[in-house]
């Protein structure tokens, strides 16, 4: 696998590169991949969540830096993408811009070409997807277009790599200075004198027609832009005043909005050029393949069917099949753990060296994350296919009505599916996928609600609790869990949109419906790998750091001297017992010193850990062979069964000792957790969680599950350990400890809490990355915790007060939430047009609380 070093470079650091510019869906990224090959850097632009890609391009012996700018339709300042592209082009002008035009939508694209040329940027036009135009029965004359524009025009088909050589030749030609570009710009008639006048007042680095026009059009970002380019406040105010008075004069004289006038002039010019170089042929308009497909896929009655089928396929392939795949990858990870367990300093009878316990703890935490990699690879590949094919936009089209009602967006569908609407997803890719949502407010609302979905890691605790308390109502409770989460998520989204997120910038829903494309294997694989790698890197490092912190919190300050002495004494008793049992055994001399004994015990544990991974008798046999070879002295005593009477006796005694040792260690761990900082926190929280029925043990499990949800079950396993040697499963132990009548109610409260529980650490980090705000990350943790506790308390206390059993309480709760949802969803809608019209352009993308 190749490495993608993440740069934190600001746009300004890549001076003199080559920029790829174009509208969304014009095939820009495909072209970028074709030009740069495998080495790319993906990062975010500072301060915004817009993806920034760059990579080297080789032209002969020249090595150039190619930057893939985010797709935009124009260079006003209304969306984060536009602001990023603008400031990149103005503040650190690239040597050259390649404008990728969708040949099938030439007229619309040309308007952006004009703006680039007006900025004074040397431009090469890549007429991409020219094959589509031909298929429509049209002919396009690139030479004529080049002549009319005054810049080189190259026909390309990015997906098939056509036209790349010519494009490279043109780039070399321009860089060598061999060809002069004399761009022909649109003329603005009556506005021309005003443009000239403003241009004279502009600072040198911004002395271009585009800037003059933007100021005349009253650009909201004009002031900071001018200041950045070294204009003093006084001349700047004078400049803005001049622009304002000229704008007013023009608008009065012509009775027309100046910005409209500019757009109309550009469009007219674009129409002019298009009609001169595009021959639409004589035959009537052919119905395109895309339109024919949409007649079926977007049919009023069939659309939901196709949508459900798509979602099912994604769910089944990624989650179900991906999970199957982890059965093959998990032994690999477990094998690595076993190797590390051999390699790290050996375990003691009661106490392990710190390097061992911490090392294994870290490895377990990382393995938990890596275990999901196969699922992510499949999931990301499928998403890439949806995106590249164009169906994603259709999903948004179908579902926008419902989701918009609750403050979300049509394009929130995918993040919610990834998060696990049904059961079994992961919030990390879910939050990552919100990137595609163009509306900042809906995007944030989606980011904050995706963690409510049922991720894979929540399932073990559900299964545990259902296994103890709801065996007879398994289906019902799973239905409850799956539906309650999406209902709560929608309500929360609605609530947040109406309160905290209200002042945030929103973008109107005007979405292009792209043509359907056949995704390429290469493109899909590359995106899947890139995103998975990003996940591993971002999440892996942070999880390691936090695993250390949790380890410390769970282990400090440790046991008191008396407790320590007590455990040592019990250990000694067990050892004495063992020595008694083997006193007369002929092999007894092999187990005299503590070192010998530990060798046997550690061998036994290592053997058991590996044996668990072996499925077939043949595999077990070969494992036995390897162990036999490695330790011919002790292995016969470790292998269950076999050997003569004396060997079997030692084997039995060893097993008893091992069991006692494990029990002691578990009790020690419980005492240690009880004493630990996290244990104290769990106990301190008891008054708060009392209403929900959670005792300190559950609190500790919930606290530690913040690092990774799976650990909730593991921690509960330690805390609800059996009193005596009897090996009772965790289900029964918890059942007895929690009592069966109130226990079910507590279990229901725990399920409700866990469903709404804050995102795990990895997700919280992803929220931080995607919102670029620590404030929102903290909010994403605190708010669900409070809400979850409130709901869990309500469920538990109401159930107790009205003497309801858990199932009735659950149904009541479900009906209540559904009623709320219907109330919000069906309430007659007030027209919110006024609010939308005043949405501030150029506002901050970041609305931290």
């Amino acid at each position, binding site marked *: 696998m190749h490495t993608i070093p993440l740069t934190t470079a600001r746009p300004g650091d890549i001076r003199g590169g080559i920029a790829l510019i174009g509208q969304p869906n014009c095939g820009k990224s495909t072209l970028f991949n074709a030009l740069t090959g495998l080495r790319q850097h993906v990062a975010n632009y500072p301060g915004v969540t817009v993806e920034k890609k760059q990579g080297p391009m080789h032209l002969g012996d020249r090595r150039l830096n190619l930057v893939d700018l985010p797709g935009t*339709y*124009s260079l*006003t300042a*209304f*969306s984060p993408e536009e602001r990023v592209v603008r400031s990149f082009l103005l503040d650190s002008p690239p040597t050259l811009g390649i404008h990728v035009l969708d040949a*099938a*939508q030439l*007229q*619309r694209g040309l308007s952006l070409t004009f703006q680039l040329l007006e900025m004074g940027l040397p431009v090469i036009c890549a007429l991409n997807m020219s094959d589509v135009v031909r298929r*429509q029965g049209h002919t396009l004359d690139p030479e004529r277009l080049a002549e009319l524009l005054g810049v080189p025009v190259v026909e390309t088909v990015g997906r098939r790599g056509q036209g790349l050589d010519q494009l490279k030749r043109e780039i070399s030609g321009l860089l060598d200075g061999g060809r002069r570009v004399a761009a022909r710009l649109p003329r603005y008639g009556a506005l021309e004198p005003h443009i000239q006048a403003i241009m004279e007042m502009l600072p040198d680095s911004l002395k271009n027609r585009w800037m003059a026009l933007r100021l005349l059009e009253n650009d909201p970002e004009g002031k900071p832009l001018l200041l950045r380019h070294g204009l003093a406040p006084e001349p700047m105010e004078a400049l803005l005043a001049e622009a304002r008075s000229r704008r007013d004069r023009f608008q009065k004289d012509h009775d027309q909005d100046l*910005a*409209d006038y500019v*757009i*109309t002039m550009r*469009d007219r010019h674009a129409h002019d050029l298009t009609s001169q170089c595009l021959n639409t042929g004589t035959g009537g*308009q052919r119905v*395109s393949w*895309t*339109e024919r497909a*949409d007649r079926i896929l*977007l049919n*009023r*009655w069939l*659309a*939901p069917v196709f949508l459900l089928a798509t979602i099912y396929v994604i769910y089944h392939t990624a989650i179900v099949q991906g999970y199957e795949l982890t059965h093959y990858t998990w032994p690999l990870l477990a094998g690595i753990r076993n190797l590390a367990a051999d390699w790290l300093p050996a375990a003691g009878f009661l106490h392990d060296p710190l390097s061992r316990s911490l090392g294994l703890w870290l490895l377990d935490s990382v393995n938990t994350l890596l275990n999901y990699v196969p699922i992510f690879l499949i999931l990301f590949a499928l998403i890439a296919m949806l995106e590249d094919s164009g169906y994603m*936009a259709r999903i*948004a*089209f*179908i579902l*926008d*009505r*419902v989701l*918009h009602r609750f403050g979300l967006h*049509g394009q929130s569908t995918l993040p919610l599916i990834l998060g696990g609407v049904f059961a079994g997803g992961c919030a990390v890719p879910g939050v990552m996928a919100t990137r595609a949502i163009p509306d900042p407010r809906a995007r944030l609302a989606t980011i904050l609600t995706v963690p409510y979905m049922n991720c894979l890691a929540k399932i073990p605790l559900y299964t545990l609790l259902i296994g103890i308390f709801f065996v007879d109502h398994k289906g019902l409770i799973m239905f409850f869990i799956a539906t309650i989460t999406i209902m709560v998520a929608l309500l929360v989204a609605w609530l947040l949109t109406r309160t905290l997120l209200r002042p945030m910038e929103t*973008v*109107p*829903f*005007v*979405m*292009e*419906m792209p*043509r359907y494309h056949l995704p390429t294997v290469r493109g899909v694989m590359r995106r899947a790998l890139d995103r998975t790698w990003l996940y591993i890197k971002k999440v892996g490092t942070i999880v390691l750091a936090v695993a250390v912190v949790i380890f410390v919190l769970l282990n400090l300050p440790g046991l008191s001297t008396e407790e320590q002495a007590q455990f040592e004494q019990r250990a000694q008793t067990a050892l004495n017992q063992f020595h008694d049992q083997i006193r007369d055994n002929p092999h007894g001399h092999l187990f005299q010193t503590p070192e010998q004994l530990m060798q046997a015990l550690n061998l036994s544990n290592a053997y058991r850990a590996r044996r668990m991974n072996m499925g077939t008798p043949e595999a077990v046999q070969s494992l036995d062979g390897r162990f036999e070879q490695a330790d011919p002295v002790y292995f016969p005593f470790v292998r269950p069964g076999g050997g003569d009477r004396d060997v079997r006796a030692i084997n039995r005694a060893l097993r008893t000792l091992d069991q006692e040792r494990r029990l002691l260690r578990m009790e020690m761990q419980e005492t240690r957790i009880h004493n630990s900082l996290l244990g104290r926190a769990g106990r301190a929280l008891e008054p708060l969680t009392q209403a929900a029925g959670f005792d300190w043990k559950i609190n500790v499990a919930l606290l530690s599950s913040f690092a990774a949800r799976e650990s909730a079950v593991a921690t509960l396993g330690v805390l609800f350990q059996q009193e005596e040697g009897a090996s009772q499963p965790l289900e029964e132990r918890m059942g007895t400890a929690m009592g069966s009548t109130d226990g079910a109610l507590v279990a229901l409260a725990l399920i409700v809490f866990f469903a709404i529980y804050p995102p795990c650490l990895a997700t919280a980090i992803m929220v931080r990355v995607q919102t670029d705000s620590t404030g929102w990350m903290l909010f994403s943790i605190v708010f669900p915790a409070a809400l979850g506790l409130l709901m869990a308390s309500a469920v538990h206390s109401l159930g107790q007060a009205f003497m309801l059993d858990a199932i009735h309480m659950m149904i009541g709760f479900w009906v209540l939430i559904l009623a709320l949802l219907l109330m919000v969803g069906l309430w007659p809608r007030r027209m*919110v*047009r006024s609010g*939308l*019209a*005043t*949405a*501030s*352009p150029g506002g901050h993308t970041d609305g931290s609380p």
Partner: protein
Amino acid sequence: MSCAEPDQTLDQVQPGQSCRILRLTASGSIRQRLLDMGLLPGRRIQLVRLAPLGDPLEVRLDAGNSFVAIRRQEAFHITVTLEACTPSR
């Protein structure tokens, strides 16, 4: 809709009907976005279909192969005249 009342907003147009954009009644980012997507005054557009739940709408631009989805909320800001009502040019 009859030609007695030729001016209406895009959200009132029926699927299949073609019309010409007269003016945009929005300002700021909505207006800019509409213009960017090619919804300029003077353009001919056709309402292709409604989403299964009646919102958003899908519109075809200039009888070409360019399709745009738009919520009723935003379509309200586009004043159009039905093609049948436009005097032939």
